[in-house]
């Protein structure tokens, strides 16, 4: 009887600890969401925030349109490079990647995932900014594409690996070449998973500050030319937050909120697509 009581106490204590610590882990997330939303809402409430470029402190009507456009351009260019290369590499690893070369590629992409993003920024600085003698959106895209690449590679590999072998063999049994089976049968079947990976990579790239810091540099004006310096949302947050001016700090909160919502939407979208992939893979 007494042992039973002791056991129950142990169980209750353990369960309590599990729930309590899980709750504790969620506190920072909740606080970040709360603070950013509460502090950012006043900025976002004005339409000019989305339509106007940044203005110096003291001049009303400033917005972050330049940074929204900048983020879109920089991330799009990075995606244009990283997604095709990453998807093809991922297919290679999943479909043909049994040898030593493939294990090196895997190792390299794992190392790249863990690489400090500021190092990628430095890399793009040395590779693009130094020889060209000026900052540019392209340089930032180079840095971000390196950042995105391993994410796309490994998620593509995972999604293609989910496709049952029967599908691959059925394609080959029709007398089709292996590369066509990989690209025209396996890849479409894995598409939702591949898209998930691409979206996650985009979300991650959009939120990065360090790789764009000394590549895109930042720019108060609305520019569309990717060979020029440009601003992105994380850069606005970084630069504005460092100023002593209340109105610019407010702008930083607004940019942070906008960025957070964007990343959240992309992440939720990718989860939705992933769920479709899993359902599809079960049917095959």
């Amino acid at each position, binding site marked *: 009887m007494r042992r039973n009581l002791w056991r129950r106490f142990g169980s209750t204590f353990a369960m309590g600890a599990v729930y309590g610590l899980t709750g504790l882990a969620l506190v920072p997330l909740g606080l970040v969401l709360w603070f950013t939303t509460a502090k950012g809402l006043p900025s976002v409430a004005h339409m000019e925030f989305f339509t106007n470029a940044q203005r110096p402190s003291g001049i009303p009507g400033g917005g972050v349109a330049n940074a929204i456009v900048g983020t879109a351009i920089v991330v799009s260019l990075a995606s244009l490079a990283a997604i095709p290369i990453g998807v093809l590499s991922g297919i290679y690893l999943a479909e043909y990647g049994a040898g030593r070369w493939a294990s090196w590629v895997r190792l390299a992409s794992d190392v790249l995932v863990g690489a400090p993003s500021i190092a990628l920024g430095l890399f793009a600085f040395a590779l693009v900014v130094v020889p060209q003698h000026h900052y540019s959106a392209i340089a930032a895209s180079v840095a971000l594409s390196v950042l995105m690449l391993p994410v796309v590679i490994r998620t593509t590999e995972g999604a293609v690996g989910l496709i049952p072998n*029967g599908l691959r063999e*059925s394609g080959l*049994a029709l007398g089709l070449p292996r590369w066509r089976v990989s690209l025209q049968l396996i890849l479409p079947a894995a598409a939702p998973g591949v898209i998930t990976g691409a979206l996650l990579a985009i979300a991650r790239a959009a939120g990065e500050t360090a790789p764009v810091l000394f590549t895109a540099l930042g720019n108060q004006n609305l520019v569309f030319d990717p060979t020029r310096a440009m601003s992105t949302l994380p850069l606005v947050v970084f630069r504005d937050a460092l100023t002593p001016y209340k109105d610019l700090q407010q702008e930083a909160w607004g940019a942070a909120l906008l960025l957070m919502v964007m990343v959240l939407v992309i992440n939720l979208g990718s989860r939705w697509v992933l769920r479709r992939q899993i359902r599809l893979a079960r049917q095959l």
Partner: protein
Amino acid sequence: MPGAAGTKLEVDSLSFFYGKTRALKDVTFNIPERRITAIIGPSGCGKTTLLRVFNRMYDLVPGARAQGTVLMDGNDIVTTTKLLDLRQKVGMVFQRPSPFPMSIRDNVAFGPRLLGWNKTRVKELVRSSLEAAALWDEVSDRLDEPATSLSGGQQQRLVIARCLAVSPEVILMDEPCSALDPVATLKIEDLMVQLARDYTIVIVTHNMQQAARVSDFTAFMLMNPEGRHGELIEFAPTADLFNAPRDPRTEAYITGRFG
């Protein structure tokens, strides 16, 4: 029905290895043209391995290699370098129905399209292949629906239609009914008999009744207890093999004493 028939596949002293492990030893027999040949035997006897030699599907497995010859119309399958031609001529239907994740129409048209055949021909092939696979009447009004919406038995007939669309001469079937219910199984069996008028069919099956029902010839395989490799014990017209087996091991298996 067995009787005068040409030989389609001439298997001569075929051995097979996965790395250093021998999986088949000295298999020799002739598969007749436009007949159904069943390969039966207990699990692990090398039935599927043998089947996968006929379209070189084993090429995907690292370290797998075959020794000996399998002649089809005089050309050796084991050494051929024209793998794509071979697989087009020797189609395969797998145990689990494997519809492609696309519409019913696209499933059938997939092979012909990728082979670059012209549009009118592909369109005709979709219909004729589905008709030949006894599926046309059930799907003619919903060709654009996803293939995964079909029942298991329909999916398996779709896979057969897909295989017919690239104009094969031989159709290999690896336990095509083991995932299906009795009614669907019966339909596939009827279909096999139909198809045997135009195609050479080789079917691997666990199910002796199925072999007895549909096949013209039967090959009985067994794992050699010492070498742990598969061997061909007996090959004969199905009626002879089931009614008057020459080998005592065949008799033991078909009367259910082991396996």
